[in-house]
């Protein structure tokens, strides 16, 4: 970890994920464990490239001639940064406006203040309640899965991106947010007022199945995940189960450090993942002292398992430590670091690819499960989970 330590200080090594569903406000998206600090000194800009002169020509023309005034230099600057980053042709390298930094930070800690619902953006650009968390404010005022959020405090949501919408819904606990909701079967949109509370994401859910199989579902790799997993393992192993099922389905990932910690509970020793970046290579080794390094293990994965999930599942597969059941994973094989810039905005940059212990690069490929089992619409409709059932069968044999 020596090299990684050099990067620290104002940066934090992390993985990002393609988020499918965010928790009210938030997210399983990208995650950040501790506040990152702004760089103190700004390096002087490099000598002006002749080629960049046209940028300033364009800038002055906009300032002088664009029909709408006033022109906001900060907005233009942010636009220029986005435009420059787009030339890298890497969807994981992105600019983050200051308002979104806090959201990402909260997501990494697994707690935030909001209404307690999973939300997502549908294809038509509407914000949809994916799931109101049971017993939390959104649920208590009667929001239902499938409700469209048209407005937040009178501000129209359509056309915003997910994080922008989330930033409006979240807010300090005790304050009230007014949502305008369109519900299927109800003619007119209606308004609900919701008092925000502190919401803790369920990072982990676990239970004993059939009295002999430990089941652990990890929802994301935030900073809480390793500690909560350890607690779950202690509870479950006390029951002397025949085997464990680690459910990483729809887990979009999170922090690299959490991935190594989680992997180390199941893998006694060896490399869990290797990073190769510009002028740097780094092996992340199992830390030793894992609680579940011997017990029969099945990992459930699907097309929503990404980044940190793939690190853990990939290592378990390479070492033959357990079998993977389910569907091909996302294939997110790059590592990002997030920086805070001096004006409070942020920048996440792809700094490396990562490889499984046997040297596989899964970028764009994903992991192919040892046993592929698909969940059909019919299964969903009748509440069946053939992937989980097969995992149980396997461990019972």
């Amino acid at each position, binding site marked *: 970890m020596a090299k990684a330590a050099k990067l620290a200080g104002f940066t934090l090594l992390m993985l990002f994920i393609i988020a499918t569903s965010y928790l009210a406000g938030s997210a399983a998206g990208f995650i950040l464990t501790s506040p990152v600090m702004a760089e103190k000194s700004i390096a002087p*800009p490099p000598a*002006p490239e002749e*080629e960049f002169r046209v940028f300033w020509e364009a800038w*002055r023309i906009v300032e002088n*001639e664009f029909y*709408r005034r006033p022109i906001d230099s900060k907005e233009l600057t942010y*636009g220029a940064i986005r435009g420059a980053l787009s030339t*890298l042709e890497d969807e994981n390298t992105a600019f983050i406006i200051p308002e979104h930094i806090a959201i990402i930070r909260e997501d990494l800690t697994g707690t935030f203040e909001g209404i307690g619902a999973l939300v997502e953006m549908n294809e038509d650009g509407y914000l949809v309640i994916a799931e109101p968390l049971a017993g939390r404010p959104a649920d208590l005022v009667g929001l239902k899965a499938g409700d469209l959020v048209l407005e937040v405090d009178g501000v129209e949501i359509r056309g915003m991106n997910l994080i922008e919408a989330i930033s409006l819904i979240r807010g300090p606990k005790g304050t009230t947010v007014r949502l305008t909701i369109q519900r299927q079967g109800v003619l007119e949109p209606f308004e609900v007022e919701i008092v925000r509370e502190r919401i803790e994401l369920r990072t982990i859910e676990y239970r004993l199945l059939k009295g002999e199989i430990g089941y652990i579902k990890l929802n994301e790799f935030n900073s809480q995940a390793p500690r909560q997993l350890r607690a779950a393992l202690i509870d479950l192993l006390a029951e002397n189960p025949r085997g464990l099922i680690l459910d990483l389905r729809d887990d979009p990932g999170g922090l690299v450090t959490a991935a190594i910690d989680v992997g180390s509970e199941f893998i006694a020793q060896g490399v869990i993942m290797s990073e190769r970046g510009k002028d740097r290579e780094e092996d992340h080794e199992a830390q030793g002292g894992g609680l579940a390094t011997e017990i029969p293990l099945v990992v459930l994965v699907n097309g929503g398992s990404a980044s940190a999930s793939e690190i853990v599942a990939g290592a378990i597969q390479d070492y033959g430590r357990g079998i993977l059941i389910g569907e091909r994973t996302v294939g997110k094989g790059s590592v990002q670091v997030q920086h805070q810039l001096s004006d409070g905005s942020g920048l996440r940059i792809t700094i490396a690819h990562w490889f499984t212990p046997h040297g596989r690069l899964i970028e764009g490929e994903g992991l192919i499960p040892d046993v592929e089992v698909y969940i059909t619409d019919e299964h969903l409709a009748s509440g069946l989970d053939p992937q989980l059932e097969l995992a149980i069968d396997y461990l019972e044999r």
Partner: protein
Amino acid sequence: MSRIRITDKTFQRLSLVLLVSILAAASYLVGFVSQVIPTYLGEVEESQIFHPTAEEPSEFAVYWEAWNMVEEKFYGELPDAQTQAYGSIRGMLAALGDPNTFFIEPPDREIEEARFQGRYGGIGADYTMRNGYLVVVTPFQDSPASRAGIRPGDIIIAVDGTDIFGLSQNEGILLIRGRVGSKVQLTIRREGELEPLILPLTREEIEPPTVTWELKEEGIGYIKLSFFGGRTNGELRRALTQLQSQGATSLILDLRNNPGGLIGAAVDVASQFIDTGLILYQRDPEGNDQPFPAKKGGLAIETPLAVLVNEGTASAAEIVAGALADHKRAVIIGEKTFGKGSTQTVRELSDHSSIHVTTAHWLTPEGHEIEGAALIPDLEVPLTQEDIDNQRDPQLDQALAYLRSLLPYPASGALQSENIMSTNRGV
């Protein structure tokens, strides 16, 4: 700290200030030209010379902070400086949230200029892109293309032996264009021909016609304006004179699929039909409205008039239709228009790239914004796919029927059907 050295000279080279309108693909007639054709509204003006300060705005420091980090840490290939600059310009312009403000790299600019000037060395045809090849849509009359027997639907597979598969439409067109008098050899695949045809042509100066006309039937003249260019008004006046000499006592002005053009041409064209009053207002960034009055000397200020519009009718064409509607000078027939009512200035940058900047919005004489608000015809007549397949034009038929009904009262000036005029008007 003189990081920016934008010299006066840089901007003295910017000899063009064009007012431009852009229209998207969908609006082209009958499934053909899928190219976005930039069109110009306005005249060439003296460019103003900038005296920019030498300092970057303080807000911009974060850009270099971000880019320095990218250069230091990014795992992957870094773009060259020009790509970075162009990307930054695109992003900056995107932040304005105006779809009509955008950046164009130098090669495309050449085509734009040719279009604006209306003169380039070419073979005289319009093209579209299909399956990676250029397909001829229309060979212009009396052009090298038509004289060589090139037909609509011919597929151009190579230019001077260079396979054009994989090139963009603009790149392909640039290969065909060249110096007036120079030779170009096209390899063409034609339906029904087993072997490709190889045709040698000599490039000529091409002036795409913008006005076509014919006497549709006794007393009714038909004029189609495809674009508002520098020569459009002259072509229109010639058309009006000829049609009147052929006995036309009423007129159909077809503005369907007309993406616009020069604002001056719009004023001139409208002035052929409107005697006095305003053609449009132009609203500048400070909210001032500059009126553009009709010019005297119109050739058809009293001739009964039907105007055909559709969703491909945009910008300058909407100004003309809107002015005629506000003056109750014509009955508007067809489908709602595009709703593009803003002025763009085209500014050339020192490396011959350019940006289009929205500098003003237009309003009709009655003060209706055109931008984002389509003009609704007096008589809405849809054109269905079935009509197109059967080569029917119910919009034109409606116009003919309307004008025929006026024929017993020819050339009286005022339109008879006040009730028609008052229905469904809106911008």
